[in-house]
């Protein structure tokens, strides 16, 4: 809890505590007047208590108001007026409290100078209090708050009471007959702003420094609305954020624009964000919005969504339409799902489907499989039917599936006749027939598939000769017959023989010099006589004219203790 957070919270108490001085001053004034009318003095304690309380409350209010005013959401003439008047109230309130002490026990009006001064100060205080409060209320509720219901009842078209400040936003109540000649911004967009945004981003209040009630205000920040590019416009970003995101606009507690209204703004931006043009039709707009705007909701958009009327087609549908593959029927997909079978798009936004019957009960019949597949015939691309008792019906469905590329029929009950129903399929490129009970006559069908690129024929019942023939006739076709890989390596190295004479990395091997160099001393043994581990040329001891090598210095020390103990090579 830092100091500025504390002060800001303190400042937020202003709208609460301001009621106190107002109430207290009016109470004091009312009691003075009553006393005047009755010609009896007001009890001194009462007057003192009220006056001091009111003064204290006024000062407290002014202080909270000061800190509230530090928040930048408020600026402009009204705030300044309110601020100065409020400070004046506080000062005069203290004056009132001070002056009342000097008032003697007599009714006002017939009193001495102090009483007159006190009365004058009280009158002035109230006289300043009223406008101060008025401007303060204007800030929060808008200038027309008090008489708004009256204005609304006089409006030519039924509109919902608008939020404060909307009236000053511009053509919010445009008569219908003029709607057609006004620009789209004025008829459609400005009212949306007026309805949802101006209350905080308008003339008096401009939170975040943003004003949307004038064209200059809208254009002030170039990233807010990027013409022709709604995706990059900050305005759209904020509108599209999830409702619980703190940057989402309008804030979650306020009235939210409908989908069609957001769509209208988006369409307006995408069509150039012009303030003057009148669009007869905007691309990318939800169809209903243009009509709704001119339909007499001038400034007041209905709460109900009109989005169901004209949803733009989803991306998948657009792609499918362009490739002439219709999107899969939901009932067909649901039927497969109900049977716990797997169907998914080959990839996102694609109409082509991958269908896997792995979860099918083992005794599912050919007819049932065919019935499940026929609804997705046009979208089926990769179908897995391993270990199923499929037959003619399924194959005839697959044979007529125009976008089929892969079929896995491993260990299924397929026969040559069933396979023949796939003959000539234009797009089938991969076929798994391992573990089936076909015969060589299936080769004719296989040869008839123009797009076939991979074939799996392990234990398919097709003989080796027929496969060899198939390889000859279709050299581009990759056929896997499942033989184990040849186990013979290309080379085997000899049994490893360890030495230690390789030079350290980075150092070239020193060439042997022909000159008589001093003899390099090598140990006569490679195994340490003490420990039996490999010896190290670093640890050597010259003993009886022989160089003995050890694995470590400890062994060398041990040897030196008692050389006779150890067997030497």
């Amino acid at each position, binding site marked *: 809890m830092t100091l500025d957070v504390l002060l800001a919270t303190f400042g937020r108490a202003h709208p609460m505590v301001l009621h106190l001085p107002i109430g207290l001053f009016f109470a004091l004034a009312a009691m003075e007047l009553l006393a005047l009318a009755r010609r009896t003095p007001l009890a001194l304690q009462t007057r003192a208590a009220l006056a001091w309380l009111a003064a204290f409350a006024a000062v407290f209010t002014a202080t909270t108001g000061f800190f509230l005013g530090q928040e930048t959401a408020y600026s402009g003439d009204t705030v300044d007026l309110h601020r100065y008047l409020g400070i004046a109230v506080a000062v005069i309130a203290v004056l009132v409290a001070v002056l009342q002490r000097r008032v003697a026990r007599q009714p006002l009006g017939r009193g001495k100078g102090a009483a007159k001064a006190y009365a004058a100060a009280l009158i002035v205080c109230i006289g300043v209090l009223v406008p101060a409060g008025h401007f303060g209320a204007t800030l929060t509720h808008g200038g027309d708050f008090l008489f708004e219901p009256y204005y609304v009842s006089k409006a030519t078209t039924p509109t919902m009471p608008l939020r404060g400040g909307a009236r000053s936003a511009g053509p919010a109540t445009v008569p219908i007959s003029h709607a057609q000649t006004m620009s789209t911004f004025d008829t459609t967009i400005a009212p949306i702003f007026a309805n949802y945004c101006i209350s905080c981003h308008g003339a008096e209040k401009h939170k975040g420094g943003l004003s949307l009630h004038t064209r200059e205000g809208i254009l002030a920040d170039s990233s807010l609305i990027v013409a022709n590019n709604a995706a990059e416009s900050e305005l759209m970003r904020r509108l599209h954020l999830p409702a619980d995101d703190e940057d989402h606009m309008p804030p979650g507690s306020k009235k939210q624009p409908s989908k069609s209204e957001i769509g209208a703004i988006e369409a307006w931006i995408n069509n150039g964000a012009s303030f003057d043009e009148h669009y007869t039709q905007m691309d990318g707009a939800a169809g209903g919005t243009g009509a709704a705007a001119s339909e007499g909701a001038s400034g007041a958009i209905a709460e109900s969504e009109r989005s169901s009327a004209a949803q733009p087609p989803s991306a998948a549908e657009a792609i499918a339409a362009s490739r002439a593959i219709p999107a899969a029927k939901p009932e067909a997909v649901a039927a497969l*799902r*109900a049977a716990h079978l797997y169907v*998914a798009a080959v990839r996102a936004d694609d109409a082509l489907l991958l269908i896997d019957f792995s979860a099918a009960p083992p005794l599912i019949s050919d007819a049932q499989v065919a019935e499940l597949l026929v609804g997705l015939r046009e979208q089926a691309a990769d179908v897995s039917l391993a270990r199923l008792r499929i037959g003619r019906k399924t194959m005839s469905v697959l044979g007529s599936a125009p976008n089929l590329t892969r079929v896995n029929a491993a260990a299924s009950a397929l026969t040559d006749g069933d396979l023949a129903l796939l003959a000539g399929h234009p797009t089938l490129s991969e076929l798994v027939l391992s573990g089936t009970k076909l015969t060589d006559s299936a080769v004719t069908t296989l040869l008839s598939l123009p797009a076939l690129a991979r074939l799996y024929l392990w234990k398919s019942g097709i003989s080796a000769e027929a496969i060899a023939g198939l390889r000859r006739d279709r050299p581009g076709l990759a056929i896997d*017959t499942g033989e184990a890989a040849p186990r013979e390596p290309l080379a085997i190295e000899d049994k*490893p023989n360890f*030495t230690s004479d390789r030079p350290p990395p980075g150092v070239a091997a020193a060439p042997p010099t022909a000159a008589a160099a001093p003899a390099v001393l090598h140990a006569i043994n490679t195994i340490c006589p003490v420990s039996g581990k490999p010896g190290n040329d670093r640890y050597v001891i010259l003993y009886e004219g022989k160089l003995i090598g050890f694995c470590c210095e400890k062994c060398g020390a041990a040897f030196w203790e008692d050389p006779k103990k150890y067997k030497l090579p």
Partner: protein
Amino acid sequence: MHPVEEHYLDLTRRRFFGVAANSIGAGMGACALGSLLGRAAMAADAPKDAAGGGGLILPGPHFKPKAKRVIYLHMEGAPSQLDLFDYKPELRQRFNQDLPDSIRQGQRLTGMTSGQTRFPVAPSAFRFSKYANNQDGAWVSEVMPNTGALAKELCFIHSMHTEAINHEPGITFFQTGNQQPGRPSFGSWMSYGLGSANANLPTFVVLITQGLGNMQALSARFWGAGFLPSEHQGCKLRSGGDPVLFLKDADGLKREDRRRMLDLVGELNAKEMEKSLDPEIRARVAQYEMAYRMQMSVPELTDFSDEDQETLDLYGPDVKKPGTFAANCLLARRLSERGVRFVQLYMRGWDQHGNLPKELRDQCNAVDRGQAALITDLKRRGLLDETLILWAGEFGRTVYSQGTLTADNYGRDHHPRCFTVWLAGGGVKPGISYGKTDEFSYNIVENPMDVHDLHATMLHLLGMDHSKLAYRHQGRDFRLTDVFGNVRKEILA
């Protein structure tokens, strides 16, 4: 906003982006909870509707995938790359030499070897053979002959590196993309993103084989769902005996009775779900339904009597013993055949700090035939092209010996700076070796690849953009690849 309200909203959001519509929870028939299920979300952006059909069709992968499922053979304990796949013949002439400082470059030693006074180079005690592949041959050690013979299908990556030095963070990093626990594992991300292709089996299955060498702990959170809804966690099948306990209904209880009981429980849970929006309720109901379906599907899955003898011989004699690696490989093939998205096999016991030559030989005898058979078996059934197989440990092993170095015995310590993994199938470029290490197999000299890159590349093969498969948790979008990861196009076919 009131914190409780926020919590409800958060749950609503999570529900909306929660379980895949096509997963085990969907299509539950009479269960009232079906209407509450949300739709799958592939990305942090709103789920797209593929066929405009009101949410009936899964959005699908971001782009057309090469692989539809993954089999991940995790060699827990970190197998020694020097003794298996990273062939360094020059080290034979460096037996017992000290590791030069220019190579070690001051790398911190682990607590296990910091007490050693020397770091002698220990060349591999195994003979390597060169097998034909689509480059100029792959050298594989004598203890993996069957795997080596398949070099034409394998893509070796010699230049993997990681930051973790010990097993728990290392495995956690490899499974979840972060050394600290709490994040979902790879299989859970796949379950969340793609859902299950077979509603009768779990999307993510884990099979564990006990090792013959030095074993380290395996935690269940390696296949946990982290902050994803619980139904995405891995389902571990038991190693020996019954893969799933209590599959059979009790005597006298008919299947219809169980169905009715589950429907009633589902209704009660639906009421609670309405009240509290707790996504774990949905997860629990989903698990009940999955268990119900597994009663039918698992006995059929684990019954190898429909396999012909030739296939069983391919895997070796171990395949008849449940819980062995070979048996688990066959089970993995059967699971993949039935559409399970992510099958993870853990082989324990590769942590050879000492006695490496003997233990490694035992370990390899246990796995070599099975994993080679798995690849061959998938290939001949037309499944290898759409199944991505990964064989990996969590890090590598040091070139210097841990403990005493003798002519025929040595040990190796952990080494994260370089290690070897291999991939097969699923759109990976077959028959290549990618990346090179230096002469000591200590540093990487060409094409370093870290774990995030591996994950990004694997997700790419599965048709997913690793930067878009995300889940919002604690205010941030988490991904498997965290904020890292580059797709390595060089190893894609």
